[in-house]
């Protein structure tokens, strides 16, 4: 038997008895960032493919919520900072080794892009919109001419944003649960899936809803594959990784993860989408709402469980 105790006493705030430096702000931000990335990705993709007419919700309507999502996410990040007045230090340097640094810069690109995208599509939402000032008309004309390059930039930067939400965590080798390179693709897939679900929720066009239900079904399949892959990797790895996996395989996060994320957030919406594609009537909002809530719970579980996983000491 081996027992290790700190005999001098140590109760550092947010560190002991177990690390809990990151609370609701970080998972909420990871969720909002992933959702915004998903919506912007599809908007850019179908613009590049010249399918604006077939998928008006994805290209024109859904992006309107992304500046709000990103602003809320950034607000959550700001609330999380302990030394708030120095936040501008993020933008005095670019440190490629720190995912948080290049992620902050990615947000600096994606957020204005999402606003420009809304401005270009504002007449879809408000047909009688008037820019009033001449320079605003000129600015709009300038960006409209550059719409295709903008779409490419948005496609790439939204993918970076989506994958970054996972890489942010996987860069921490001190937390074995996070320290898997699967987390980047997994969070990206989950973000795209929640984005597709949001488009299904907002769309009034049955054909568009069906396409995005199919896309979401495929993404859910990839997500399940990546989750199984993640656990296979953990269980075939070192003791600390086995311990990390056991948080979900009998440990305290077993029920929340397998019930809320895998069953309610992935398996049941997948089943509903299959039935919908097979022409059974399904209330169209159930599957996407489950996917979105599942994605949110997934971020929370990963952030909290990751802080509970540590090296043998």
């Amino acid at each position, binding site marked *: 038997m081996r027992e290790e105790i700190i005999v001098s006493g140590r109760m550092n705030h947010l560190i002991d008895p177990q690390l809990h430096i990151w609370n609701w702000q970080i998972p909420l931000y990871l969720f909002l960032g992933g959702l915004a990335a998903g919506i912007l990705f599809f908007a850019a993709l179908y613009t590049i493919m010249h399918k604006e007419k077939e998928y008006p919700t994805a290209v024109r309507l859904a992006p309107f919520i992304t500046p709000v999502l990103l602003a809320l996410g950034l607000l959550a990040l700001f609330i999380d900072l*302990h030394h708030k007045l120095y936040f501008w230090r993020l933008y005095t340097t670019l440190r490629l080794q720190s995912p948080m640094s290049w992620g902050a810069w990615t947000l600096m690109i994606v957020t204005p892009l999402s606003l420009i995208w809304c401005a270009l599509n504002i007449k879809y939402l408000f047909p009688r919109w008037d820019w009033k000032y001449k320079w605003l008309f000129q600015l709009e004309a300038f960006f409209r001419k550059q719409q295709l390059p903008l779409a490419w930039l948005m496609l790439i930067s939204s993918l970076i944003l989506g994958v970054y939400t996972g890489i942010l965590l996987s860069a921490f080798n001190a937390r074995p649960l996070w320290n898997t390179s699967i987390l980047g693709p997994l969070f990206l897939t989950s973000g795209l899936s929640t984005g597709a679900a949001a488009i299904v929720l907002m769309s009034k066009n049955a054909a568009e809803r069906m396409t995005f239900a199919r896309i979401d079904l495929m993404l859910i399949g990839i997500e399940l594959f990546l989750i199984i892959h993640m656990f296979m990797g953990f269980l075939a790895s070192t003791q600390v990784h086995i311990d990390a996996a056991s948080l979900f395989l009998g440990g305290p996060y077993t029920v929340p993860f397998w019930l809320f994320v895998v069953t309610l957030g992935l398996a049941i919406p997948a089943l509903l989408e299959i039935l919908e594609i097979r022409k059974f009537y399904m209330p169209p909002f159930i599957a996407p709402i489950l996917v979105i809530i599942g994605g949110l719970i997934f971020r929370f579980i990963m952030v909290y469980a990751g802080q509970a996983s540590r090296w043998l000491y």
Partner: protein
Amino acid sequence: MRYAMAVDTHKCVGCSDCVVACQTENNVPIGYCRDWVVEVTDGTYPNLEAEIRSERCNHCENSPCVRCCPTGASHYAEGGVVLVTPEKCIGCGACIASCPYDARYPHPDGYVDKCTFCLENRVKKGLNPACVSVCPTKCMYFGDLDDPNSPVSKVLKNRKYKTLIPEAGTNPQLYFLI
């Protein structure tokens, strides 16, 4: 130059003087500590073996905290000592989450704080870190590993030692004599 510290687990009695000395020397806020003492008990009664360690930041050569810091507030200073510049720190917690030793904490003033090896306030004046100077059993050795005559180089030459979680790949510079 490469500053390092060695702690003799055979001599340490776990009195926690190092903890109090650090808190006093570095004005560590009440309720926090930059160093701490761990007691490890192995086996079942009556066949027990104990090890006592005074622990702190490992001033790793491959520091995850320096790598993860988005602003460059966490950096390598003279002799490889890992320090935080409060005016650059945004308090995001990335370094805290990245440390396998949980050696960092958020200072009540907002920035992240940790052991400095007393670099500015003592070592640069030719003194030992506060914890080393105060130890009643003289179980701690500090110095420059590049200098073969420094106390830490000498003791590491003659004794068996280990580091904590070397498999985390951090290359820690806090050695425990065993």
